[in-house]
């Protein structure tokens, strides 16, 4: 696995801070367009996410775990999954269908002769190049999201919930630690399958 494939290792606290930034950007964009009602809905939904992440961060307090290894494992598992979900939300607005819609519009405006298309517009660059996504896999993942966003969100949440419960029950070092590690690896593989490996999560087995 090359450096460009290294997954992010954000903690729930970092994710919560990033979600706050995303909230501000999204709401400003919708407000600028006069879509105040939807801006309010985003505020409520993002607020729920931030509150839930705050509770998860508390639940993942070191004092709640029997060993440092269990603690680190749980935080890493949550960080990976939540960062993946957050990045999906950001990417949905910044790439894929958005990219296509922009290019189609530019083609039509170019044909109409009201702009001279000199190449890609200077719209915000997608998240690629951060080493987090593999473009072809993200295309598949975005397609899934576009087809059934609620189902995808449910599956992501299911995987995160499973990881939380299993990290909690992994127990102290020894045979149970091995069991916990095996469970975590299996879950990450399952998550990779669900997302077509778009998040490049390393199970540690490769």
């Amino acid at each position, binding site marked *: 696995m090359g450096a460009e494939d290294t997954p992010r290792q954000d903690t729930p606290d970092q994710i919560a801070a990033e979600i706050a930034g995303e909230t501000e950007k999204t709401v400003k964009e919708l407000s600028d367009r006069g879509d105040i009602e939807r801006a309010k809905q985003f505020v409520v*939904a993002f607020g729920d996410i931030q509150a*839930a992440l705050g509770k998860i961060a508390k*639940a993942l307090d070191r004092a709640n775990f029997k060993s440092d290894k269990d603690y680190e494992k749980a935080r890493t598992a949550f960080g990976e999954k939540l960062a993946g979900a957050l990045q999906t939300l950001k990417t949905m607005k910044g790439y894929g269908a958005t990219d296509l819609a922009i290019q189609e*519009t530019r083609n039509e405006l170019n044909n109409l002769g009201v702009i001279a298309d000199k190449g890609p517009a200077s719209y915000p660059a997608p998240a690629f190049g951060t080493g987090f996504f593999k473009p072809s896999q993200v295309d598949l993942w975005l397609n899934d999201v576009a087809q059934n966003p609620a189902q995808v969100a*449910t599956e992501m949440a299911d995987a995160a919930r499973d990881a939380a419960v299993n990290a909690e029950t992994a127990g102290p070092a020894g045979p149970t630690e091995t069991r916990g590690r095996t469970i975590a690896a299996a879950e990450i593989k399952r998550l990779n399958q669900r997302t077509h490996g778009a998040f490049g999560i390393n199970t540690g087995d490769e």
Partner: protein
Amino acid sequence: MAQTQLQLEDLILFSRSLTLEEKQELLKRVDTLEPEKIAKLREILEKEFNSFQRLDDLALTAVRGFADNLKLITAELPITLA
């Protein structure tokens, strides 16, 4: 959101496809365009505007689903939170 008739100038400003320089240039030129071109320009930009409205709907659905499921996660965590 109640669908309101947007001015052509608003559609140009809201466009995510046009660069800032292109928006400024188009706003200066819009009065000099033939009526047919203005109508076509409106049609193209309305189509773009509506497509992003749909994308925002998708994003909101995903965000809500994610929020709801995070609530379930926290409810099921086997730890009593202060």
